[in-house]
C-alpha cells in the first residue's frame, strides 16, 4: 500500500511544474541516502547471517552433525559436543512455557474483548504493557529469589523428602518463561481479536446468540489464526530467552534426571556461559555459533509460519 507509484508519476509532473534552475543535486542525494538506508538494513542482515553461518557451519563440520544432535555429553573442554541436552532443554522449557502461559493469556484476551468494558480494557492494557517491557533479568532474579525455593519445597513434597531434586530445573524455567511471555501473548491476542468485524458480532447477536456463544462460536473461530500467531511469538521468545532462564535452570550439562525438578541447561544459556571463555577459532567457539544457527533456524521457521497464517487470514 505504498505511494511509490504515485510519487513517481506525480513527481514527474511536479518536476515539470517546477521553475527551472531549482537544484536537482540535493534531491538526488537525499534519495540516494534513503536507498542507502534500505541497503544498510539489507546489508547488515546479510552480514549477520553470513558471519554466523560461516562460523556455525565451520563448527558443524569440525564436530559432526550426528555427534551434535545425537549425543548428550556436552563437555567442550574434553572435546565432546553432544547438544541433545541443550536442545531438549530449550524445547521443553519453551513448550512448557506455552502450555502454562499461552492458554491463560488467550482466555484473558477473549474475556477482555468480549465481556469487559472499555475502561477495564484500557487499564488492563496499561499494566500489561509495562509488564511486557520489564527486562527479562528482573523476572529471572525474582524467580531465583522467590520462585526456586517454592519449587524446591514442591519438588520434595511431590517426590519425597529424600529425593535428589532441586528447585532449579525445567519446571521453574517453564513457569518463569510462562510468566514472561503471557503479557506478550495477551497483547497480541487482543490485537487479533479486535480485528474481528463488528457486523459479524452483531449478526450473531441478532440470530439469538448469547455473548458467550458469540465469543466462542464466532469471534474466536474467526480470529484463531491471530491467536495462533500470538502463541507462536510467545514460543519464539521463550526459546530465545537467555539470561533469565540461565538463572533458574541449574546449569547441569545433561538431560535432567528428574524431568521437572532436576537441573539441566538450554541452548542460549549454554552459549552465554561458554562464550565467556571460548577462544575464537577453536572448535569450542565455533560450535557455539552452530547452536546459535539452530536457534536462528527455529526463529525463521516461526516467522515463515506466522507469515503464512497472516496471509491466509487476509484472503
Amino acid at each position, binding site marked *: 500500500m505504498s505511494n511509490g507509484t504515485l510519487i513517481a508519476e506525480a513527481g514527474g509532473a511536479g518536476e515539470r511544474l517546477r521553475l527551472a534552475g531549482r537544484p536537482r543535486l540535493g534531491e538526488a542525494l537525499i534519495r540516494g541516502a534513503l536507498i542507502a538506508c534500505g541497503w544498510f538494513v539489507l546489508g547488515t542482515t546479510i552480514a549477520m547471517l553470513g558471519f554466523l553461518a560461516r562460523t556455525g557451519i565451520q563448527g558443524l563440520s569440525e564436530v559432526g552433525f550426528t555427534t551434535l544432535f545425537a549425543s548428550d555429553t556436552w*563437555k*567442550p*573442554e*574434553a572435546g565432546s559436543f553432544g547438544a541433545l541436552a541443550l536442545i531438549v532443554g530449550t524445547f521443553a522449557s519453551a513448550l512448557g512455557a506455552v502450555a502454562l502461559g499461552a492458554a491463560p493469556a488467550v482466555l484473558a484476551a477473549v474475556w477482555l474483548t468480549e465481556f469487559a468494558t472499555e475502561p477495564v480494557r484500557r487499564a488492563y492494557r496499561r499494566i500489561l504493557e509495562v509488564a511486557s517491557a520489564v527486562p527479562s533479568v528482573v523476572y529471572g532474579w525474582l524467580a531465583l529469589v522467590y520462585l526456586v*525455593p517454592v519449587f*524446591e519445597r514442591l519438588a520434595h513434597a511431590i517426590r519425597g523428602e*529424600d*529425593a*535428589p531434586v*532441586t528447585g*532449579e530445573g525445567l519446571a521453574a524455567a517453564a513457569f518463569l518463561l510462562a510468566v514472561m511471555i503471557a503479557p506478550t501473548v495477551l497483547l497480541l491476542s487482543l490485537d487479533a481479536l479486535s480485528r474481528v468485524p463488528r457486523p459479524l458480532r452483531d449478526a450473531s447477536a441478532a440470530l439469538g446468540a448469547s455473548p458467550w456463544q458469540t465469543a466462542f462460536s464466532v469471534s474466536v473461530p474467526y480470529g484463531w489464526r491471530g491467536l495462533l500467531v500470538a502463541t507462536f511469538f510467545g514460543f519464539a521468545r521463550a526459546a530465545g530467552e537467555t539470561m533469565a532462564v540461565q538463572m533458574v535452570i*541449574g*546449569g*547441569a*550439562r*545433561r538431560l535432567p534426571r528428574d524431568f521437572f525438578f532436576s*537441573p539441566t541447561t538450554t541452548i542460549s544459556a549454554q552459549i552465554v*556461559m*561458554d562464550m*565467556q*571463555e*571460548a*577462544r*575464537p577459532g577453536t572448535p569450542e567457539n565455533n560450535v557455539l555459533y552452530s547452536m546459535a544457527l539452530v536457534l536462528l533456524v527455529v526463529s525463521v521457521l516461526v516467522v515463515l509460519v506466522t507469515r503464512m497464517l497472516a496471509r491466509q487470514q487476509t484472503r
Partner: protein
Amino acid sequence: MKVDGFEIKRGSMMLALAALAALAASAGCDKSEPPAPAAPPAASSAETVVPANSTVSASGSSALQPLVNAAKEKFEASNKGVSVEVSAGGSKKGLSDVAAGAVQIGDSDIFAPDDLKAQLVDHKVAVVGFAAMANKGPFNEKIPAISLADMAKIFSGTVTNWKEVGGQSQPIVVINRAPGSGTRSVFGTIVLGGDKFVESQTEDNSGALVTKLKQTKGAISYLALSFADPELLTFSLKSDAGVVAPGADSITTGMYPIWSYEHMYTKGEPTAAAKQFLDYLASADFQEHVLPTVKGFIPITQMKVTRE
C-alpha cells in the same frame, strides 16, 4: 511549527537552552582535582613513573578476588590516580581475556594451557587451599574425615548417600562449579584425576554457593578456604598418616594436597600501572603484612613444597 498539539515554540527552546547552560556551568566547576603525581609505593622499586589517572584492569578467578581486593585498597590509597578494576568470571575467562587483550591482568587458579603459555607471563602471588564443604546435619557431622578416594567417589557420582561414607542415610546432592572455574579444575585434577565430576547443578557464585550449601540438605561442593564458614562442614582428609585438616600448616608442608598457586598472568611483560601493581603484590610489605590478614591465603615463601 505546529503539529497536532506539539508546539515546538521558541519558549520551550529557550527553557531547554537554559537547562543546558545550567548543566554546562555545573560541569565546569566539577572536575576532580588533578591527582598528585603517583609516588611509588614505599617498599617497591618501580622505575617507571605511572601516568596520572591510569587504570589496571584484571579479571578471572573468584578465589583470588578477596586477595586482589585487599591489595587494591592498599595500593589505591598510596597511589592516588591509579585505579584497579577487578571483575570475576572464572579462571578460564581471565586467561582468555588477558590473551585477547581485553584486560591487563588475568587472575587464574590454574596454570595457563599450552597454547597460551607462549604469550603469557606468569606472576605467582600466593597459594590458596581448597576443601570440600558440605551442609552440616545429623547425617554427616559425626564423620571426622574423608579419604581422598571416597571424596573422588562422592564427586564422580559413584557414592550417592552419606551413609556410604560413615554417616546416616541422606542422599548426597553434589553442587558443581561452572566449567570455567579454576576451583573446579584444581579440585578435579587433584581429587578426581581430571574433570570427572558428575554432571549436576552448577553454582558459580561463591557467595550464593555458600548460601545454597547451608540451605540444601545433604549438599556438598568445593570452595577455596577463604570461603570457609562455621555453619558448613569443612572436610579434613583421612590418609594413612592420620587426619589432615586443611590449613596453612598442612598446606605448606604438603600434607594437605588440595592447593594451587594463584597466578596473575600478563600478556608479555606488564607495563606502567600494571607492573606497579604486580610489584606491590610481590613486595615484602604486602606479602608479610597484608596477605596473612586475608583469610585462606598463604605466602609462597612459606611453601616447603612446590608444584609444576
